[in-house]
């Protein structure tokens, strides 16, 4: 408690040499706080970060009728510890007595512990049930 390194500027300096203005101290102080915060976040991730492979969960956010069919809005969440690029998501809509209808979308980038949204189009109404969503694969960035 006795000595703090971030002491205010010495007051005994003469006006000719002391050109450090208050604003300069404030700007420098804000910079220092930002730097420490950034170092903290990145350092923590570098040292104790999760390095498990991407785990992609696809979730249906909502369905709505659009011209020419139906739109299923989806949310792709990566719960793993690594980013996944070009994540291909496929939706399969089972139809009684017919071939299932499939649609797919590719997500450029789904970073770790983050989510991205998108949509799949179907001709038939998915409200009847039988819609399965899954991630087919990814590429390491």
């Amino acid at each position, binding site marked *: 408690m006795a000595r703090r390194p971030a002491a205010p500027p010495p007051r005994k300096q003469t006006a000719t040499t002391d050109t450090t203005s208050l604003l300069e101290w404030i700007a420098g102080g804000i910079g220092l706080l930002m730097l420490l915060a950034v170092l903290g976040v*990145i350092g923590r991730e570098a040292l104790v970060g999760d390095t498990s492979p991407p785990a992609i969960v696809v979730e249906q956010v909502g369905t709505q009728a659009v011209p020419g069919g139906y739109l299923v809005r989806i949310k792709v969440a990566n719960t793993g510890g690594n980013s996944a690029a070009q994540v291909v998501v496929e939706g399969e809509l089972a139809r009684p007595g017919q071939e299932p209808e499939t649609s797919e979308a590719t997500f450029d980038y789904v970073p770790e512990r*983050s989510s991205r949204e998108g949509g799949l189009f179907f001709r038939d109404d998915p409200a009847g049930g039988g819609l399965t969503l899954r991630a087919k694969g990814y590429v390491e960035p």
Partner: protein
Amino acid sequence: MSGLLAPEANLKFAASLALAFGGALLFAFPLLMTMEMWWLGHSMERSRLLVFLLAALPMLLGLSYYAGFEPAFRLIDEVLDALAAFAVGMVLAALALTVLGQLGPGMTVGEMVGKLTVCAIPASIGALVAGKAFGGEKGDAGRRQKAHMGFAGRLFVMAVGAIFLAFNVAPTEEMALIAYMMSPWHGLALMAASLLLLHGFLYTLGFPGQAERRGDRHPAHSFLTSSVPGYAIALAISLFCLWTFGRLEGTSLQEGAQMTVVLGFPAALGAATARLVI
């Protein structure tokens, strides 16, 4: 105390802060609008990002000394200026990335901080280069001081110039693509061109304090003492950028060397023309 609250010094610093924002924007906007930069923010290995940030700090400090007009080295002023430049870079990156829709819900703190850091480092270099007037009082004394810039100082300025230009293209896919498409002969030709251009620019522009002595130097002497080390620095910086951006991962030695030479071209131009910007 009078110096601390002097309205003149504070106003001057505010003006140089505004200038710093301008410089940061001008230097960093090509990067802020490059998708590889946003991706690097989260795909870059965290340990490399940490090394990258830690390597940038002494560079900002040195830059605040060489780009500033402070007559003498006052450590606290240089540190404050470097930190202020970092703050300018961070704020600018945060504002720009938000407006450009690159920060938003669904992202983790780590991802956002990564993106901001990757963009803030070039922005703070721009802030320091533009905010030459950082730090209030100045006079011609600063220029005189810089006139006696030693060999190490010249190499440092060349290194900053190399980073200044190399950074604009380093994160793009094209660096790897060009390297794949070039034959080793193309690579050697590009090396020769980089070195000759570097020498040509250096010889024409010169460094402060060099002009009066240039006459009694043999061209081969300045080639060996300025151009060759300058190109070596350009290559070293290229290699470092490629390593931090993870471009050397799984790449053969020959492809890695080729990529270094490709990136070394803008780096050499930057090293040669550093006098223009700093």
